[in-house]
């Protein structure tokens, strides 16, 4: 079934594109929410990622698994957004953790994954991105440094700080 959908996407059929979007919406959002501060930002990253997926679907090798292929595109798109918003954050002070916390409490509810996402969203974008890439995506510090245009030392430092902050947030939530 996935092969038929991919074939339709190669021919730019809207019906196939929608089917693919529905099929991987949840999986994609579970990735983009970890890199964004709210759901709308996560949707924006996901939609941009799917634009790239549809543009490059002809280059996908059918002999390889599809999920890792789109996962990589979604992560790259999330990093692109990180870079785009870097300057804006520096100017307008969007690194304010308090703002992010209050926004998340109004949106998220219920199950433990969302609590985890909420905890991640309380980190600064730099810490959050390094944590996601290292712990969840499995990249090395050298690869992360190349992707984010930072030094290996900065990557290690950000990871250490992310871990420390998460432990603090977790301890606070458990009290």
């Amino acid at each position, binding site marked *: 079934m996935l092969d038929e959908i991919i074939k339709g996407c190669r021919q730019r059929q809207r019906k196939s594109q*929608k089917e693919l979007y529905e099929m991987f919406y949840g999986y994609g*959002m579970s990735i983009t929410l970890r890199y964004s501060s709210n759901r709308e930002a996560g*949707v924006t990253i996901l*939609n941009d990622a799917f*634009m790239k997926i549809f543009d490059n679907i002809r280059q996908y090798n059918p002999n390889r698994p599809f999920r890792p292929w789109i996962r*990589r595109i979604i992560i*790259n798109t999330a990093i692109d957004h990180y870079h785009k918003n870097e300057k804006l954050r520096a100017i307008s002070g969007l690194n304010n953790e308090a703002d992010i916390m209050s926004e998340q409490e109004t949106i998220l509810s219920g199950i433990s994954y969302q609590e985890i996402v909420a905890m991640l969203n309380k980190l600064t974008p730099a810490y959050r991105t390094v944590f996601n890439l290292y712990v*969840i995506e499995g990249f090395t510090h050298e*690869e992360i440094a190349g992707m984010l245009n930072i030094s290996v030392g900065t990557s290690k430092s950000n990871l250490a700080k992310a*871990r420390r902050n998460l432990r603090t947030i977790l301890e606070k939530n458990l009290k």
Partner: protein
Amino acid sequence: MSDSEKYNDPLEELFRKKAEEYHLPYREEDWLKLEKKLELQDTRRFYRNTIRWVAAAAVFIIALLSYFTLDNHQRLNELNRQLSEEIRPPGILPQITPDGSQEESDRDTAPIDDQITTVLEPPITPPTSSTDAEEIHQHHPSATPLLASEGDKKRIHSGLHVAKQTALPHTLYQPTEVVVDQQFAQVSHTETYDHAETKPSRFSLSMHLAPEFSSISGPVSGLTEPGYRAGITISYHVTEQLSISTGIIQNISRYTGSQQTYQFNNSIINADEMSGTCRILDIPLRFVYDFTNSGFFASAGISSYIMLNEAYKFDYTEYNQIYTYEWEDRTGSRHWMSNATISAGYELPVHTNWDLRLEPFISVPLREVGRANVRLYSVGSYVSLRYRL
């Protein structure tokens, strides 16, 4: 914490496990936002394709019109030449010796002045008396007959007509027309468009466009998506056949390769497959040889590359998962005399001072280029428009 310990940390293990398990429910409104972007993109693509088809149709029509214009122009030239002159068939012209016998002469070795011949109206027998002269003048008003000498009388009576005007001591008749010998009437490939009327400049300007296929594995192996080349060059004609040219040509080169064919950033990533798209500024230096009067030419030269933009994608497998790593930068790196190019082609004159050229080429690397240190092969075919200044 070291890399090997990261999979043992319970907190991080929790994050990884939960990240893999959770799926957010689908929202239709998110799809509608994406659909709007897709429709906008489709509209832009439609307009872009339409413009390309219109441009291609315009080029085709111009080429067709140029062909018919050239064909008509050649026919008109031929007709004009036939109307303004008569061409005598080549052959040996009999000479008249003093004793009246015939002697063959080799026109080709005779001095040029002697090869100027006259065309006769229906042969006029030179008058031997004034009565004859008056009669001739009545029938041929443009002729001014003079009385023949004794020697001429003998030649006339032998039935031979004098061909060489300058050989005779007296002019027997006034020719109605003087034509240039066929040797001078011969039209060469380059004379059709009156190039002899004004002294041509040694410089010419060319615009080039070419599709190309690139590879880093060998001249024609591993070819993928086509790129293109577009640019301008200026040529200086050292001699009639030999010219030297240089200019600026922008290339978009696309290629793929395995990890044996590249070395990127101290080999941080050894990928299963690498694909690259590079925007390159090519500065060629070429020698072009024109094969006289045939329209064919050949060239050989050296190119220097300036890498304007490099984009790479690396597919690799780690922990049984496939990853793609992308890298892009405007590197601006310079690689002098990095490639050698040879080509051969055909030139078609389309108008005065304008020529259309078709030129298949192959480019082979002399050294590695780019951040991935690749040896870049290219094949393609230029379509060029040349203007002689």
